């Protein structure tokens, strides 16, 4: 079969575009990277809630079916409203991403499409299942039997998680490419299942799935904690807090373990990324673990950090004398921007630890008193940490993606070689940024309106009778 290097025929100098004057400030490559970062950073917030919120509403509805306590039914319905708004924005921003893969990175997709497409294909089906049963769940409260309705919710939760796992598997492939043989610039002997189950797959999907439950659970817990602070006995918010804390708390406590495992996989498969995360410039034995600090790429040191001698060697290789690869192992031009990566990594770890701490607190109080923790101190702490999960997710993705630079496929294709030759991408960057800021504000406003008001007593009474449950 004749290969057609059509796209290679375009030898466009980016500075020659009709909008070149802006190109002086924002190169096409930078514009494409920023647009991708904004699109992913925006979509991930909705995707994460789309994974975890359905689980919480299915749990609430299961309690309604078992106890017939009408508050649980109202809770499931309220959470479902939030899920519907967030799913809608998640679906369209996800559609944008599937096109952007080609609109911004056509050379990447031409190479990677056949290798990783299977993952996207399976994800398409998972997403399909999610969309179908979301329609049944949201519009079917009174049209399908109660058990079928609950089952629809459970399917949404399951397919949401599956779809997240599949997409993250594709990202894992970009970090640890497998399942093909590189001949020149072409991939041969393509093995899509092996590509999908690459070395980083378990670590990344586990870490991200737990992150989704931790971030969403504690975010929702924070919202109900705010409302409980002024209305301590409210049965609606007490039950909501209990479910949200259970989902978010368990995930938050497990997350440091999965993070440790993920870091060991990074150490093994992407040592340069690990060096950037830790601000490790020199290749050395007994490498210290740095807490905080600001790397100085020119001087080649990380300043102001609290250093635990041998800590990094132990964490990465379980051996204080293990050698840790530093950034000095590769030429300066090929190093990722260490400052952003180290700081993002520190932010992610700090957020994660704070969340785990509050979750342990909740568990301890619940264990000793046998009730939902509702002390003022605890509720305030829950409110304070509630946005940290989302912050940690953004910071974590910054580590993963920026930490892979200058590669789009680690060691195989450079980001600069993947970008589209279409000129003037800064226009597109500007338009999409504006659009997403606008949408973000609207969603925040709508959700605030949905969740500000607690259900009225008559609403609860109405929901307890089958005729009034409409």
């Amino acid at each position, binding site marked *: 079969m004749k290969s057609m290097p059509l*796209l290679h025929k*375009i030898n466009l100098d980016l500075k020659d575009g009709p909008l070149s004057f802006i190109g002086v400030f924002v190169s096409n490559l930078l514009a494409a990277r920023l647009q991708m970062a904004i699109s992913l950073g925006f979509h991930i917030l909705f995707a994460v809630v789309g994974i975890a919120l359905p689980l919480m509403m299915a749990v609430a509805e299961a309690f309604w079916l078992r106890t017939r306590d009408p508050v649980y039914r109202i809770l499931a319905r309220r959470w479902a409203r939030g899920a519907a708004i967030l799913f809608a924005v998640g679906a369209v921003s996800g559609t944008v991403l599937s096109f952007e893969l080609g609109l911004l990175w056509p050379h990447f997709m031409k190479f990677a499409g056949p290798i990783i497409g299977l993952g996207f294909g399976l*994800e398409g089906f998972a997403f399909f299942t999610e969309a179908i049963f979301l329609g049944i769940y949201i519009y079917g409260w009174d049209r399908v039997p109660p058990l079928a309705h609950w089952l629809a919710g459970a399917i949404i939760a399951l397919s949401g998680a599956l779809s997240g796992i599949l997409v993250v598997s594709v990202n894992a492939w970009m970090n640890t490419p497998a399942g093909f043989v590189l001949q020149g610039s072409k991939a041969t002997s393509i093995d899509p299942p092996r590509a999908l189950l690459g070395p980083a797959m378990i670590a990344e999907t586990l870490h991200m799935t737990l992150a989704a439950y931790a971030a969403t659970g504690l975010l929702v817990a924070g919202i109900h904690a705010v409302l409980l602070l002024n209305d301590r006995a409210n049965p609606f918010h007490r039950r909501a807090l209990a479910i949200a804390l259970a989902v978010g708390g368990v995930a938050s406590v497990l997350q440091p373990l999965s993070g440790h495992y993920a870091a060991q996989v990074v150490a093994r498969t992407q040592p340069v990324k690990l060096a950037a995360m830790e601000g490790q410039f020199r290749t050395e034995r007994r490498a210290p673990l740095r807490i905080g600090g600001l790397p100085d790429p020119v001087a080649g040191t990380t300043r102001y950090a609290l250093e635990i001698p041998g800590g990094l060697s132990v964490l990465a290789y379980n051996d204080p004398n293990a050698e840790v690869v530093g950034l000095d192992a590769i030429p300066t031009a090929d190093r990722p921007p260490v400052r952003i990566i180290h700081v993002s990594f520190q932010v992610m770890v700090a957020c994660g630890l704070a969340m785990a701490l509050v979750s342990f607190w909740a568990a301890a109080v619940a264990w000793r008193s046998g009730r939902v923790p509702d002390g003022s101190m605890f509720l305030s702490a829950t409110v304070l940490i509630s946005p940290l999960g989302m912050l940690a997710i953004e910071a974590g993705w910054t580590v993963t993606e920026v930490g892979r630079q200058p590669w789009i496929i680690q060691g195989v294709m450079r980001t600069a070689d993947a970008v589209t030759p279409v000129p003037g991408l800064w226009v597109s960057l500007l338009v999409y940024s504006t659009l997403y800021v606008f949408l973000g504000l609207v969603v925040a406003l709508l959700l605030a309106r949905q969740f500000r008001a607690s259900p009225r007593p008559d609403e609860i009474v109405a929901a307890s009778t089958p005729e009034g449950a409409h």
Partner: protein
Amino acid sequence: MSSPIISVSPAEAVAVVMLLALVIYALFGGADYGAGVWDLLARGPRATAQRELIAHAIGPVWEANHVWLIIVIVLLFTGFPSAFSAIMTTLHVPLSLMLIGIVLRGSAFTFRSYDNSEVGKRRWNRVFSIPSVVTPMLLGAVIGAIATGQPGRALDSGLPVPLFATWLRPFPLVVGLFALNIFAFLAAVYLTLETPDPELQADFRLRALVAAVVLGGVAWAVYFLARSEAPQVFQGLSDSPWGRPVRYGTGAFAVVTLAALSLRWFRLARVTAMVQVALILWGCALAQYPLLVPPDIAIGNSAAPPVVQTLLLIALGAGSVILLPSMYYLFHVFKGHTFQLSRVSTDDPR
């Protein structure tokens, strides 16, 4: 790889599935765009009732209908990566604009259900309905532009990628109008079956009839412009052995749809309208076969290795086992009434 009886390569089978997904997207997702058109054009004493009927009709199936587009894209970049990157490069501008439309209407459609203020509802309605008109025109323009061969030639020329010259031309724009008209026509036909109210039904019957007649005119315009602008498609439709039957078949179904609408046989009209639209798309695709992006990129020379195509087909088969029953259940629950309604209304002497 290919059986001796029906010689279809895995790549061709994937291409057929891709076309099938595109046709289903047009029949279902397309009608959601069309419903947005009628939302924008809602007039007269029943304007509010029309809008409510539209929102009620598309709400439950909205998200599912949208996924077909993603399936098309995933099949394209997995099965035919160089066709995908060629399209995404040479039609960057209309595709980006189309996506903005998809984002706006997709968000606004949900926002308006959850915005309790009257002003808010009306505002979201606008943000839903205006992009519902613009987005399908851009989708049609992209498909029309590909058929002209301009995007393919722009790549071959080796010159900088043009932003507008590939698609801002008469033929793609008329195809854009054609797509919009098709979607509006389908939506109006479907909506006749969504209401027991005879007046609302009459509103949408009239809209369906008008859209059907206009569609005939636009179809001729596309056909004649194709002679010079998309000669490959024109020759396929006019000269090939299957061209005539496809054209006559499409025409016949169009006539039956018109007659059925006139006689208020709405259930029949729905079936024939769907067949008519499917025939249009199959005809255009057949005319371009085996090219994906004329003049050079074809199914054969852009296909991913056979192992990828075979795995895709297995995944599609396995996925369908879950997808089809789920889809049936969704439509059974929320569209079951449209199968009873027509019986009532045809029995109803008026």
